């Protein structure tokens, strides 16, 4: 009997556990194998909808469901706890449970899908707990943000003017797409309330150019023309009178000022009354120990704490290409360990990394959407089943051979709504496969705006929550 342990229950971990349960059942291997999930949270959160929670248009609970009910149904063991040690030679992890006791959980196969550690400490004054800015990264953060946002709305209703800054809180942040969604939703919400003219709205980001979104932008065919995400976002910002400052590294935040450095090395300040700035990510604080007790974390993880997998590490950005991106998500050190979702160490950035004359890195990290994370978790799960069957891991889900599907909400309404539709194939430019079109298949890429996007965004919210709760025919859904 094999024990399969999944650490983390976000898009990658939860979907990996569901895939394992489904595939083991289909192959008649359920009785002889055991799946367990350890997660810090008892609930799954559909993070893409937290932008609506942040402006008070949705309750945080609407984005969540209890994991234990799903896992009971799928015959998956579940522990709420925080893993802080992995012992790969002896095949066990050590976790701290909700009751503050320490638990040792053994495994034969391990999937690390821990998600990111929100590194607010990287910038003094960043974040809702010890700083002056807000975030929409967790349900608590988003609910906290909505309370302050609605307070700001009531101040605006009394005729007060305000500076609102939305974007990234450090030069190495990722997930610019989520921040820009929040920006557009704030714009449309204020406009619907008749308060937009009172707000000076600014986009402050580490992107090398507008519309980069941490994925080096998107270009798609629009009839005979080629339309880019940069053109669309620039047009939208001009029309909505949103100011912007890209290529920026926020290095300090006081009660009402954001201090940042530009790519040219200039130090600037921006006043704010309300700011939602995303933090940079790093790996969860988990240590790895060999059988002799020596710390092998550096061998297992990159300096940021993300788990190394079957990627080609070390190539500089200009040389980085499709074949360098991981395919199976298997650790090169221990073949029974996989890492999926945000937890795996990417071989490099998708966007152009740059350095200011002062040596400050302004380099967006590669984002991983829910769909990308699901694909990683799916591949890792299927590869473990391959190994259970005595085969070599044969399932691949390279970001250089898979699509990015992103619907960026702008105004969440069934009628009169708007959203940006972004389809990109592949996510990571693959110049080897698509040398003539800068590494992407332009016939498959899509960039558009319209009501249909708002319908899509709504549909994805319901479809993902339906599917991830393991409801009828969940495995048939895309």
């Amino acid at each position, binding site marked *: 009997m094999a024990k399969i342990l999944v650490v983390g229950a976000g898009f990658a971990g939860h979907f990996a556990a569901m895939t394992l349960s489904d595939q083991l059942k289909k192959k008649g291997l359920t009785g002889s194998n055991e799946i367990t999930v350890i997660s810090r949270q008892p609930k799954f959160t559909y993070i893409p909808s937290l932008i609506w929670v942040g402006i008070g248009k949705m309750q945080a609970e609407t984005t969540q469901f209890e994991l234990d009910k799903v896992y009971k149904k799928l015959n998956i063991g579940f522990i709420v706890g925080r893993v802080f040690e992995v012992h790969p030679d002896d095949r066990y992890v050590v976790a701290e449970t909700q009751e503050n006791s320490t638990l040792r959980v053994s495994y034969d196969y391990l999937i690390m899908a821990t998600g990111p550690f929100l590194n607010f400490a990287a910038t003094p004054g960043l974040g809702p707990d010890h700083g002056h800015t807000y975030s929409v990264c967790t349900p608590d953060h988003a609910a906290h943000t909505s309370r302050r946002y609605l307070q700001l709305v009531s101040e605006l209703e009394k005729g007060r003017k305000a500076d609102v800054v939305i974007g990234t809180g450090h030069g190495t942040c990722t997930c610019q797409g989520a921040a820009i969604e929040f920006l557009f939703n704030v714009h449309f919400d204020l406009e619907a309330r008749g308060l937009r003219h009172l707000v000076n709205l600014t986009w402050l980001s580490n992107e090398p150019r507008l519309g980069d979104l941490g994925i080096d932008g998107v270009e798609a065919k*629009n009839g005979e*023309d*080629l*339309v*880019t995400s940069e*053109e*669309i976002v620039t*047009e*939208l910002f001009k*029309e909505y009178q949103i100011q912007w400052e890209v290529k920026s590294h926020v290095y300090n935040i006081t009660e009402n000022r954001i201090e940042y450095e530009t790519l040219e090395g200039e130090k600037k300040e921006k006043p704010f009354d309300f700011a939602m700035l995303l933090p940079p990510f790093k790996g969860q604080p988990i240590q790895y120990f060999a059988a002799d007790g020596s710390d092998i974390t550096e061998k297992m993880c990159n300096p940021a704490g993300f788990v190394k997998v079957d990627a080609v590490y070390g190539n500089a950005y200009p040389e980085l290409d499709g074949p360098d991106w991981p395919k199976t998500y298997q650790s090169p050190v221990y073949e029974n360990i996989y890492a999926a979702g945000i937890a795996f160490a990417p071989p490099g950035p998708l966007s152009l990394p740059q350095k200011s004359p002062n040596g400050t890195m302004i380099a967006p990290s590669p984002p991983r959407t829910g*769909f990308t994370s699901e*694909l990683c978790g*799916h*591949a890792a799960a299927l590869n473990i089943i391959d190994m259970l069957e005595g085969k070599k891991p044969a*399932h*691949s*889900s390279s970001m250089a*051979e*898979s*699509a990015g*599907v992103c619907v960026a909400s702008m105004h969440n309404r069934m*009628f*009169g709504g*708007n959203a940006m*539709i972004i*389809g990109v*194939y592949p996510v990571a430019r693959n110049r080897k496969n698509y040398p003539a079109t800068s590494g992407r298949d332009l016939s*498959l890429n*899509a960039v*558009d*705006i*319209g*009501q*249909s996007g708002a*319908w*899509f965004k709504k549909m994805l919210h319901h479809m993902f929550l339906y599917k991830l709760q393991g409801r009828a025919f969940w495995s048939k859904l*895309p």
Partner: protein
Amino acid sequence: MKFQIDGKEKRRQKNLILQFFLFAAYGLRFNKLIKLSKH
């Protein structure tokens, strides 16, 4: 600039019949992308 948010573009974004067809078209495109992504 090849993408102008002008009056014509705005009408396109809000034309419910056109947007319904675009919803179907992008649904098919996304389905193709998803299938291509699962190896």
